């Protein structure tokens, strides 16, 4: 493939990692959601670019889903959710933002060092993309475990999933990518609905404050 193709794809992937760090940096829910919207947009751009250079039209669908669903519907829904259930606006973190950022750096380094030995045979594009995708996945997971708010955890999960989509689209000619992205959108919808349904105020951990105390049989 030509240098430009490669550079653009690379750029988008890099951008996504960067945005991930921005998300890690946020301490307000709203701003976090906005940043995530950006993340999703970059993703859709990256996917679209892949669709173009691979000449795989079905990927445009994926790009569209990313744009419409992740970059618009979900963030808006979450905005309203926050207002409706007047959740805390600021993000409770575990172990401070700064430390989380450092950990994030380490994760990126880790994912790159893991990807290094992959021979160029797998396609340089795939290889670089993968390194970024992996770091995005790890950063998403990191966000899930260092943020206490339910919403920010959902955001973390979606970030993780963006990384997956990036990887999937980066994999040349991979079947079922569209189906998978759809499946994931459904999954996320489930989660958001779940939050509504179970009135999760602050955290995933508790369906209801009452459930905290009425722990099942094993609590003594």
């Amino acid at each position, binding site marked *: 493939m030509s240098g430009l193709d490669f550079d653009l794809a690379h750029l988008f992937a890099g951008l996504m990692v960067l945005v991930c760090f921005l998300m890690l940096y946020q301490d307000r829910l709203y701003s976090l959601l906005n940043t995530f919207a950006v993340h999703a947009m970059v993703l859709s751009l990256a996917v679209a670019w892949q669709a173009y250079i691979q000449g795989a039209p079905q990927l445009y669908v994926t790009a569209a889903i990313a744009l419409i669903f992740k970059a618009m519907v979900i963030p808006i829904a979450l905005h309203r959710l926050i207002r409706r259930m007047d959740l805390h606006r600021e993000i409770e973190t575990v172990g401070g933002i700064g430390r989380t950022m450092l950990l994030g750096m380490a994760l990126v380094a*880790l994912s790159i060092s893991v990807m290094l*030995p992959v021979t160029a045979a797998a396609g340089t594009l795939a290889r670089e993309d993968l390194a970024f995708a992996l770091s995005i996945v790890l950063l998403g*997971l990191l966000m899930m*475990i260092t943020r*206490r708010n339910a919403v920010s*955890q959902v955001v973390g999960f979606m970030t993780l999933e963006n990384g997956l989509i990036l990887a999937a689209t980066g994999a040349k000619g991979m079947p079922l990518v569209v189906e998978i992205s759809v499946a994931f959108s459904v999954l996320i919808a489930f989660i958001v609905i779940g939050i509504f349904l179970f009135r999760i105020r602050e955290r*995933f*951990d508790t369906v209801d404050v009452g459930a905290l105390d009425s722990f099942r049989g094993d609590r003594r």
Partner: protein
Amino acid sequence: MRDLVYPLCALLAGLLGLVGLLALLRGDAATLVLPLGLPWVGSHFRLDPLSAVFLAIVGFGGFAASLFAVGYGRHEPAPGRVAPFFPAFLAGMALVVLADDAFTFLFAWEFMSLTSWALVMAHHREPGTTFAGFVYFVMAAFGTLALLLAFGLMAGPQGHYAFEAMRSGPHRLAGVVMILALLGAGSKAGLVPLHVWLPLAHPAAPSHVSALMSGVMTKVAIYGFIRIAFDLVGPPHWWWSVVVLVVASITAVLGLLYAVLQEDLKRLLAYSTVENVGIVFLGLSLALAFKANGMAAAAALAMTAALLHAVNHAVFKSLLFFGAGSVLAATGQRSLDRLGGLIRLMPATSALFLVGAASISALPPLNGFVSEWLTFQAVLVSPQLPQWALKFLTPAAGAMLALAAALAAACFVRAYGIAFLGRPRSPEATAAHEADGFQIGAMALLAAACVGIGVLPGPVIDALAPAVRHAVGGAGLAAQGGRAWMTLAPISDNRSSYSGALVLLFVAASAVISAALVRAVASRAVRRAPAWDCGFPNRRPATQYSASGFAQPLRRVFGSVVFRAREAVEMPPPGDPGPARFAVSLVDPVWDGLYAPVARAVDRAAERLNRLQFLTIRQYLTLVFAALVLLLSLLTVLR
């Protein structure tokens, strides 16, 4: 239907015993392979002299127990929980003895544990039974796993599970195999410190089952050890015998020290089983030592002693448990301090129990003495052993054996004297009645065996010879059967000899003569009068010596050292007519030193880990994340 179980068991078990006996007399091996068990191995069965001996023990022991149970079963409160498992238990023991491949062996072994566990749990509502069953089953599983590891080593990576292949196969880590076998078989036989389940489980079971467990199942365990250590692992190394010797002598003495302090008749019998198992293993260890040094004749002597003692113990321990069972059925009491005076209420039972007590105390001319005598003879050959460790340890073991023998007498004087002599200590004991025909019949049978083997040991020893040759090789002992006056001379005439028949003859003769003389000269007059008791006779049973009172001197001498026994007497203040209270505190060194810490450790670990049940989802995700990161960094490092 239920009434038919025990008669049928008696019939089948008797047949088994006969089969074993015939196979032993024919002295050759028969094998059989069935398409069961482990695929591509099949389940192999083999009846060679060694297994024949123990098949005979299982068979005849089972026969006696079933016969006893025909009568005893009527007193059983929960027959539905005993009758189904009893035959299965017998079958399991028989299969262990017959098995000829690792899978079949362990299958039967664990099946035997399972069924006996169910039998122990028969009286599941009585306090302590649940604990007993738990400890028993866990120890059984421990033993099975140990044996499983042993077989795994012998079978090798390709899994040659048939015993035939193991015999011929390369003997890797034979020492480890022997240790594992000692752990596995020892935990079932009741070697210290693996004996803890035995005094809990044996008394908890119905008495005819206790008899089977103590009299027969421990022998099956001994068979397991002999099969592995003498037959399968190949040539022994002399240090093995050191290990076994030490364990065995500790077991023999400690078992009796426990027994002599017990107040529960059945528990006392169970502890004495521990002691006798120790004596058998003492013989086995000597056999190992001699075999390792190529002293075939001495090895044969030791092995004969061990096997004979196994047979004898099966006989008299079953007899004693039957007696205890009859007492339990007649009075509902197991505690010595609630019994007494039974010799007048249950004359037959008490007479037969006396025979058992005398033979387990190794009194000539009964059978217990013969096997212990042979063991002593084997000990006396030890100076010819080349290794110094053995030279020194064996006499020590002999001393331990002597101590055990003396303590056994003390223990059973106490048991018999308190339970059967004197005056009844409780209303139940006063209301006791004689056992029924089947029970007495079974006991009489065993008592006859005690006397028979004691007086004519020669033929029995010759019958054991093929098994001995199979185990230790060589020519075995010289034939003992055909000598004048049924005399035993295991090594040579002027080395040592013993004739039970003559001793019996002499004692009987001199007793008769003296009695006759006395009758001739003495006055026949007999007057019944209140007991003299130094002028202060007191009819109340409470004035008799109690079980703990009788044990007091022994407790002071041995208990204070081994069990840190402490006695506390609280006196009422002067002028207060209230009774003085006496309390004894014992510390079980094995339980407190070994099992309690393990239990505590498990408990603590469980408590620590249990927190993981109550983490939040975020924390669980952290676990996943940590695992992921760890593996990824491993990937980078590994390269």
